[in-house]
């Protein structure tokens, strides 16, 4: 094991290298570029035995990965924001075709107006594409998640996305353990698909199906997604045994006795955890539930936390233009048929890279305590708006 100080993109590139994809197809977009530049160099240097198809668009990147994976090899790609949006049609194709493709998305805002900074709108908008979505909170996790994602994806035959924040992770250096190839190989066996394009076995992949057959294909995907929930838990545990870092669907921080819990995804969760410590020093029982797997959604973990908390706040770094943020509505959806009946307040913040400082998070926690005692006055609140109200 080597310890290196590298960026999130460096970590993702190394995670991809260690997973040994045979075909990479990718197209550059800020802030993903340094991932694919590093991989291009690794391939050119022979450090990675793969073919890198330098496609003319993200749409073609995913189409080429789909075709290569269907032919029988492990594939990888990376994108961000507008690139991910352009892939949309093929993201659906990848899951529909049950191909365990793994990609990294660097979470970036969608234009207009143009913005290259951190924001979860791009991946949240792909929620329904049938991809497993992991939101990471550190560079180490970015590397680890790619390796883990391949194992999960290849077990349930669904594609998976490892998602890192623009700049906050992608371009920020952190100390990262880079595992040895042999250790990764022992954890992640070579890719052996059940079905593939093969001369002598004339099968058609993706042919027209009548209404009598379509729903069953979709039901199988839904079953696989449900299965993924458990697979993520077991593979995350196995990952811990192999590499010393255990991962689950969520990360809980001081939720056991928390009166208010903030549900949050991405690197900003670590800031929230520090704020929790500050609050606790003042005797205020706050906690954080970090969502690592957004798809499949960790509804059981959420229900567990809701059982003893008095109020849940949900932090969304995106909005859905209708009723708050996606994580907010998902959390509420998870709680509705449970025994929990506690208020949920949704905070929209940090869009387009707006800085989320400890001060901002502290105000959110304070508002949560206020709402716990005085009731939720506003169900969905935009935090940090420069609207002159001075509220935030």
């Amino acid at each position, binding site marked *: 094991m080597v310890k290196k100080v590298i960026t999130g993109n460096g970590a993702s590139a190394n995670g991809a290298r260690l997973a040994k994809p045979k075909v990479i197809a990718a197209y550059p977009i800020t802030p993903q570029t340094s991932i694919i530049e590093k991989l291009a160099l690794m391939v050119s240097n022979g450090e990675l035995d793969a073919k890198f198809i330098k496609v*003319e668009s993200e*749409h073609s990147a995913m189409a080429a990965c789909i075709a290569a994976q269907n032919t029988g090899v492990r594939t990888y790609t990376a994108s961000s924001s507008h690139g991910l949006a352009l892939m949309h049609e093929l993201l659906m194709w990848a899951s529909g075709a049950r191909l365990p493709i793994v990609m990294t998305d660097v979470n970036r805002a969608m234009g207009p107006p143009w913005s290259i900074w951190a924001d979860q709108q791009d991946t949240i908008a792909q929620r329904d594409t049938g991809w497993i979505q992991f939101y990471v909170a550190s560079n180490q996790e970015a590397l680890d998640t790619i390796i883990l994602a391949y194992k999960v994806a290849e077990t349930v035959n669904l594609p998976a996305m490892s998602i890192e924040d623009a700049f906050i992770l992608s371009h920020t250096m952190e100390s990262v353990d880079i595992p040895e190839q042999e250790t990764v190989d022992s954890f992640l066996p070579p890719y052996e698909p059940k079905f593939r394009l093969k001369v002598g076995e004339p099968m058609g992949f993706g042919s027209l199906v009548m209404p009598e057959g379509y729903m069953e294909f979709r039901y199988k995907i839904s079953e696989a997604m449900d299965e993924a929930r458990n697979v993520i838990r077991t593979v995350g545990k196995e990952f811990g045994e192999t590499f010393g870092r255990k991962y689950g669907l969520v990360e809980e921080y001081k939720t056991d006795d928390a009166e208010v819990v903030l549900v949050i995804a991405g690197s900003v969760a670590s800031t929230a955890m520090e704020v929790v410590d500050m609050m606790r020093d003042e005797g205020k029982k706050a906690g954080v539930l970090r969502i690592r797997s957004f798809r499949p959604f960790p509804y059981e973990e959420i229900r567990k936390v809701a059982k003893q908390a008095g109020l849940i706040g949900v932090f969304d770094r995106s909005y859905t233009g209708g009723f708050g943020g996606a994580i907010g509505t998902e959390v509420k959806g998870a709680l509705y048929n449970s025994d929990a009946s506690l208020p949920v307040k949704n905070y929209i913040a940090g869009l387009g890279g707006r800085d989320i400082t400890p001060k901002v998070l502290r105000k959110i926690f304070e508002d949560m305590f206020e709402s716990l005692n005085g009731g939720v006055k506003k169900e969905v609140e935009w935090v940090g708006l420069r609207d002159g109200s001075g509220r935030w």
Partner: protein
Amino acid sequence: MVKLTIPEEEYMLPGHVACQGCGATIAMRYLLKALGGKTIVSIPACCWAVIPGVYPSRTLEVPLLYTAFETTGASISGIRAALDMMGDTETTVVGFAGDGGTADIGLQSLSGAVERGENVIYVMYDNEAYMNTGIQRSSSTPAGAWTTTTPGGSKKEWKKRPKKSVIEIMIAHDIQYAATLTVSYPEDFIKKVKRAMEIKGPKFLQVLSPCPTGWKSDPAKAVELARLAVQSRVFPLYEFDHGKYKISMKPKQVPVREYLKPQGRFRHLTDEEIETIQMHTDEQWEILLAKEKFTNELYK
């Protein structure tokens, strides 16, 4: 003694669901005869996404990957890359897409694949409109043609601009081999596919494939119609092989009227309009002759 030049092997099973007289179906049959069984085909949205039949039945005796409408170039690149990485450089990878999937929505991914030099064969079966969705114009629809989106109407708005030449776009990519083919000249068809197989790198084949349903013509006359397209020089058969143009046949010229007449999609054309089409056809033929002469002198 007759020399058999059409392979006897069949890679298309009976039971496909194409219309009567479908040129694209004949095109696939000849293509696979020439390519043989060591072939993987990728097909985007188009009539041919339906023709092989409904899941779980199949018409083709080769592995087939369906792909999204605009992705054929990328799809065959992905298959090729995976095969190469698995140590299989022998299997032929072929994309089989319509004119819409090639000249319009898929032009970008085709251009990317050809520019990168992917070792694949791209076949554009050209029935000169979006037939799968019910005969809408494509950029490969010829001038003057009726389609459901160039319906004429009281303003007489049929397709105005001439057919986009995808083969010339391919040639502009410095492609090693590109050719035009059609279903009424099977020997020429097979020969060109075989030639494409000999070359490493991207190959482009444009196959004129009559569509009786969309062209409003007699299904029994589909092959005849394709022959008239060549004889009238509306669709000349030629090759572009490593820089040199080679016109495959220079048959005695038939007036374009003979080709247009049996097709309902051109029924509304006035004598004057037919004359304009004739002039354009003659000009294009002269340009092609000049290109053949020039490139053969240049690369003697």
